[in-house]
């Protein structure tokens, strides 16, 4: 068993990847797009800005150093910028820049190879930083809004809209329904599926995982799925992406004009309005307010540290070392999420108390949620009081470790396909084959007394050949 442990882990991850929710970041998303599309995207300063922010630290420095240089820079020179000890990070940075077509190889007189920043990207990132070029499509001048909305209003509005979608997913009855369009996206994303018997919509295992993500990651994932369906709706992907990033770089609490937006974009805007990414008083109001959901849309790394000046919904969960969970909330949705992996004990108007038990966690694991997702969820919504303590992790380490152990408990058995060799005529024959397979690393199990051994199925042909040669020779 022991020597299989490392192996089994790798296998398990491979297996679970196919069924787990895949959350791409901007880099992964863009990398998988065709190169001509990338070139088109880089024509927009907003996208250049967004791409730049997602680059690794070193790559950012390289780009900044090269943006103001007109000739190609020798590769050896670029390599000498980073210190030797961190050459791995340097290679990673170079790879990302090449993957995203941000720089290209270029020959330098003298036969050296050099890097040169993509001219389109260079031009447009300079526009974003220094000015020049056209204004972004949504920033035409506006009269002051007579009924201007403040940030607090926008926050409640966007939260309501977004929770509407989530409520729909968990099937709670307390909220109004959502549009057929949104349902189609949920189905397309595999977050919900039609029940085979009665055709009603039910949440899938990916759906549960989706619910446990933090708000920003949810929005980003959802929007990515939406963008996949954009072409079917006769919308231009580049146009939509550009607009999306313009929104993400807008200022909260400020109104923007719809003037100069094409019919396609107006449709897109209405979709965003439904999910709460923008607020519009009327469909034809001529102005809209971006909400917090739309801001910094790509910044979806799982946040463990809160942002300064952050007024996101505050955390509400307290976890004690005795596995008790206190959730200060009156929202049915949040209670429903907590009950995914806890056993409820008490319920008060503004507080539920539950306890994390082996059974409750195992039930969640059976539902396809991973231990990391549970821990991640608890961490995101942890009560500010738990963050104040000096400890490195806001959650009690004993609870975190135990949840991980409960997950590992389920992976004690490790399945491998093998071929059984038995009925050897002599101990010598057995030993020869055992040694051969062992030295090749394909032996899975053997028993000396019964002269049987099991080898990896993939190696069966090779071992068979060896055995034939051996038995002929003797």
């Amino acid at each position, binding site marked *: 068993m022991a020597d299989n*442990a490392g192996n089994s*882990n790798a296998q398990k991850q491979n297996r679970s990847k196919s069924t787990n929710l895949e959350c791409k970041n901007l880099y992964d998303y863009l990398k998988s797009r065709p190169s001509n599309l990338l070139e088109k995207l880089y024509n927009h*300063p*907003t996208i250049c*800005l967004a791409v*730049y*922010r997602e680059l690794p*630290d*070193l790559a*950012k*420095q390289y780009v*900044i*150093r090269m943006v*103001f240089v007109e000739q190609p820079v020798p590769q050896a020179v670029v390599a*000498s*910028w*980073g*210190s030797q*000890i*961190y050459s791995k*990070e340097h290679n990673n940075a170079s790879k990302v820049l090449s993957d995203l077509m941000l720089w290209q190889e270029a020959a330098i007189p003298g036969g050296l190879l050099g890097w040169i920043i993509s001219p389109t990207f260079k031009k*447009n990132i300079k*526009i*974003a*930083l220094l*000015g*020049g*070029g*056209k*204004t*972004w499509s949504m*920033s035409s*001048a506006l009269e002051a809004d007579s009924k201007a909305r403040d940030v607090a209003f926008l926050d409640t509005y966007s939260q309501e809209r977004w929770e509407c979608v989530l409520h729909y997913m968990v099937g709670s009855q307390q909220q109004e329904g959502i549009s057929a369009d949104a349902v189609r996206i949920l189905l397309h994303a595999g977050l919900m599926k039609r029940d085979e018997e009665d055709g009603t919509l039910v949440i899938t295992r990916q759906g549960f995982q989706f619910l446990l993500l933090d708000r920003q990651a949810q929005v980003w994932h959802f929007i990515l799925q939406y963008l996949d369906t954009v072409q079917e709706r006769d919308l231009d992907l580049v146009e939509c992406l550009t607009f999306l990033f313009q929104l993400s*770089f*807008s*200022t909260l*609490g400020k109104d923007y004009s719809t003037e100069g937006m094409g019919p396609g974009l107006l449709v897109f805007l209405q979709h965003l309005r439904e999910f709460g990414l923008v607020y519009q008083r009327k469909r034809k109001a001529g102005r809209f307010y971006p909400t917090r959901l739309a801001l*910094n849309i790509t*910044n979806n*790394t*799982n*946040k*463990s*540290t*809160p*942002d*300064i000046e*952050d007024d996101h919904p505050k955390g509400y969960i307290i976890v004690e070392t005795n596995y008790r969970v206190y959730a200060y909330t009156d929202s049915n949705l949040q209670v429903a999420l907590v009950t995914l992996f806890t056993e409820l004990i008490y319920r008060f108007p503004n507080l539920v108390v539950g306890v994390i038990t082996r059974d409750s966690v195992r039930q969640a694991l059976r539902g396809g949620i991973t231990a*990391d997702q549970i821990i991640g969820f608890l961490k995101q919504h942890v009560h*500010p009081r738990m*963050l*104040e303590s000096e400890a*490195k*992790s*806001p959650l009690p*380490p004993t609870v*975190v*470790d135990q949840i*991980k152990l409960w997950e*590992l408990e389920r992976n004690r058995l490790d399945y491998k396909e093998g071929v059984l060799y038995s009925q050897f005529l002599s101990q010598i024959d057995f030993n020869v084959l055992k040694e051969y397979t062992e030295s090749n690393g394909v032996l899975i199990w053997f028993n000396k007394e019964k002269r049987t051994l099991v080898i990896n199925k993939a190696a069966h042909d090779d071992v068979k050949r060896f055995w034939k040669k051996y038995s002929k020779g003797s």
Partner: protein
Amino acid sequence: MNIVLPEESQQDASSAEETSLLVIILDSNPGQKMLRESPHVLTHCVDSVIVFANTHLMQKVQNKLAIMACHSKSSQFIYPDQGKHGDIRQVDGQYEAFTAVEKITKKNLAKVLTSDGSAVITESLLAGAIAMALCYIARLQRTKPPGAKLNCRILVVTGSSCSTSQYMNYMNVFFTAQKQNVVIDVCALDQHLNLLQQGCDITNGLYLKVPQLQGLLQYMMWVFLPEPPIREKLVLPPPLKVDYRAACFCHRQLIDIGYVCSVCLSIFCKFSPICTTCHTVFKMPALPAVKPKKRKKM
């Protein structure tokens, strides 16, 4: 059985999510030598500093920025200011937030420049400006939400000289910065700044004397843009040796051997019978070469 490695995944993502605050102190004192000779240089410097500031904001969404002007008679914050700026809209393809930084900074800087009287003060009071920046940083550290991490640094851009008259103020701000983990970077435009260089050394910051003012922006992008955690991954100019010699209180000269008052620790280059700082009378001249070993009676 497998062993759970506690919190292994938490480490790697941490540095990217920390907020970093950059406070830029721009010396706008018209009395500094550089500006007395060619006042238009200031425009070039301001432009470079604003672009640099915007590049800092461009690095990460969470990054924060403050700009101060250190003027002849006072220092003040010129970005962010207290006013509301909902009316600032894009004029071209520049990112709105960057436009706002540029406009607000220029507007407030103009106010500072015009408010000034005629008196020429050659030395900029940078120590005071750094002290204000430290108070500002201390407030943000106090009021940040629990669990958030805020890395702060101060960048001083100046063409002024530094004389020892501010020595004590400089040392106090450097030690405070060191205690608060604030890095002080110095970009010297005109003259070599010995005292500020000591500050960089004490707080682990970088000191750069810009060889050519024309390339100011490029120098700043190369040297000062990377944050301290990234700096160790890059090859940056090696630190110069710092001269930590003391300047005597009587003649402001750098000295190798001096006399220190046992009551107030003032430094003198020659023996004098009375301490000019604390007015203590020294009873017996200390023997020059040997440290007095025997006890003296009152």
